């Protein structure tokens, strides 16, 4: 038990479970299944971008990708425009969304590496360009996703939303990469002390490059799924994911100073972020109070989760 409490990810899962229980107790147990289903659906999007953000934050102080919302919007917009609601184009749309992600990652890292801009500035400034490209190509049109794709993204398999399965699969891959691969070790070494990692033979710039590509590709994928899920791309569709992607990393128990990341915690935090809002809603908290409480709760969890942590 004490070993379990020592795991930083446990706190986000406990918080999610508590928020779930409090919400369900209000209705005496009715609607529990629906609530869980909704949390898994909406949580999946936050979890996928959160895992991308987690990889970047693990790179160490100052590393963050603030272009996630714009990348999601641009990828969703271009993919849906290219598919034009035609059946059988889902794979092509996915390829476009992922290509947008690759392009964005490349551009972000070019700004960071070649122009030596701080990542916060580089990604924030570049996101204005990505957002403008989305506006320019969208022109207020709302194109529906192809029927098969819309069915997939809103459908379920074995009572679990398909998007949650996607999120789970990505979580497994990210976990294996981080915990079991050379590349994951390199990433965490770089995040702890870039100079020491470099002197230990870690190709640190290669690691950073791959990481900025990964976060943008995951954001592109999320944009594609979210646009399909909600029946079309919207220009503000990525908006809430700026704060969300960072919050789930922090609540999930990853170190904000870098070098230590936590995949299960991100999923727990993504569920919690949805559940806490539903909980406050069902207790009828006004919007202002809701925000204050959400902020307070996040701070509380971060304090609880930031116990001393060391990896074996």
């Amino acid at each position, binding site marked *: 038990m004490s070993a379990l409490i020592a795991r930083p990810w446990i706190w986000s899962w406990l918080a999610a479970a508590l928020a779930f229980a409090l919400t369900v107790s209000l209705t005496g147990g009715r609607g529990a299944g629906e609530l869980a289903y909704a949390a898994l659906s909406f949580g999946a999007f936050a979890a996928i971008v959160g895992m991308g953000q987690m990889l970047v934050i693990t790179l160490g102080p100052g590393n963050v990708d603030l272009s996630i919302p714009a990348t999601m919007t641009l990828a969703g917009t271009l993919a849906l425009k290219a598919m034009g609601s035609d059946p059988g184009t889902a794979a092509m749309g996915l390829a476009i969304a992922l290509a947008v992600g690759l392009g964005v990652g490349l551009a972000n890292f070019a700004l960071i590496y070649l122009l030596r801009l701080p990542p916060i500035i580089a990604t924030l400034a570049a996101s204005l360009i990505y957002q403008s490209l989305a506006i320019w190509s969208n022109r207020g049109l709302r194109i529906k996703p192809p029927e098969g794709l819309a069915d997939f993204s809103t459908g379920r398999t074995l009572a679990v939303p398909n998007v949650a399965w996607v999120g789970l699969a990505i979580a497994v891959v990210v976990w294996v990469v981080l915990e*079991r691969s050379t590349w994951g070790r390199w990433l965490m070494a770089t995040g702890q*002390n870039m100079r*020491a990692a*470099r002197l*230990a*033979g870690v190709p640190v710039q*290669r690691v950073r490059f791959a990481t900025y590509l990964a976060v943008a590709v995951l954001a592109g994928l999320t944009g594609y799924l979210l646009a399909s899920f909600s029946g079309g791309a919207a220009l503000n569709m990525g908006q809430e994911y700026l704060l969300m992607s960072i919050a789930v990393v922090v609540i999930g128990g990853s170190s904000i100073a870098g*070098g230590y990341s936590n995949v299960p915690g991100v999923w727990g935090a993504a569920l919690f972020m949805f559940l806490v809002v539903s909980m406050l809603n069902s207790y009828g908290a006004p919007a202002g109070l809701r925000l204050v409480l959400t902020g307070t709760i996040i701070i509380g969890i971060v304090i609880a989760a930031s116990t001393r942590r060391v990896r*074996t």
Partner: protein
Amino acid sequence: MTTSAADKAAPLVALTDARMQFGAVRALDGVSLEIRAGECLGLVGHNGAGKSTLVNVVNAGLTPTGGSVSFPASGAPSARGAGVRSVFQELSLCPNLTVAENLKIAHEGLKGLRWRGAARAEIRESLDRVFPGHGIDADAEVDTLSIAQRQMVEIAIGFAPRGQAAQLVILDEPTSSLDGGIAQQLLTHVRRFCEAGGAVIFISHMLGEIFEVASRVIVMKDGKVVADRPAGEFTRKGLVDAMGHVAPEGTGAAAAERRIGVEVVRTPEGLTAREGEIVGLSGLAGHGQAEALARLYLDTASAWRRPGAARMVFVAGDRGRDGVLPLWSILRNVSVSILPEIARRGLLDRTREAAVAKDWKRRIGIRTDDVANPILSLSGGNQQKVLFARALASAAPVVVMDDPMRGVDVGTKQDVYAMIRAEAAKGRTFLWYSTETEEVRQCDRVFVFRDGAISAELTGADITEERILEASFEMQDAG
């Protein structure tokens, strides 16, 4: 302050059998010393001889683990009250503040709304006195100044009245970044200051300066004062001899059993190394050895290319900055440089990783019951062993070591020397920067650095402390 004739005789600072122990290391081993007003004490000795520790005990930066420090002349309980000031080699100014603001930090008495004007006047006056014609603006931010100007400001703050006149000023390598003319101004001021009844402890590796300014010279070695005489009784040669005894045992013996192969390393500054050779980098600390090694390593190991089989590995001496990955276990710290070698298709073979770490824990004697313990649970010396294990575990043919034995105990040192010789016999090349002569004598060939360039190349029986010191100090008239 009123000083009668009797007070003048009382020493400003008196150390009685002062001892300072850091773990197993005796940095100060029973030093008794008195410094009187009007004296300029030259302090010489190698890196690690205990000079800095002595200075830090005098200025109360360190509390000695044995013996006592007192300030009889002033009767003050603390170094600060006795007017002891220190000017260190590592610059301690705040770069984002102006010259005058930096004085304010050292001068607690400056208060109220008008402190800025007072600080400006005081630092200007002090600069003018020590370095006439200095051309430094009291309102300039420190980071806009050159290194030499910063050092001048630091010295001027040391001599500034700051509410209570300075009685004893400690200058640690004050001229290392000053050019000849400015250094001369400083020496002149030091003499004037001592004639007026102040005292100075002057640490320098430039023996010429010591002779020019010191009234008395103290030589330190291994935490002890080995000579304490009026400056006139020393000759340059005698001073160098007093600093280091030369024990020629072991010299060159290591080279005999090994075959030295083709040249595998050559740098623009002329550093070369051959297969199976142990090459030393020596000279005084901070003369470009560490930079030369870091440059060599960084130029060889790409920050982009996947290191298929690393050509070179690095053993850091500055553990915190260059070596230890603090969030990780001992195991992960050992294996970080050999990850590509213990991975299959990018996935790690964790059984093999554990076996390597366990093997090295035994071979190099890392004191822990489990390699899964955090690296920070180890003492400094044991952390250093982990960094050694990290490098030696890899198959890289060239091993670059940046003063890697800091804090490593004597027994382990001998084991590591043997390990290095054995690895070299297998054809590995070592480039080894060390500030300790004992380590340098393990080498087949030694490059002595001075001012960022190679000043001498010594081989075999020529690798002696005397020859290294001569090359470090630029003593054309010696020998």
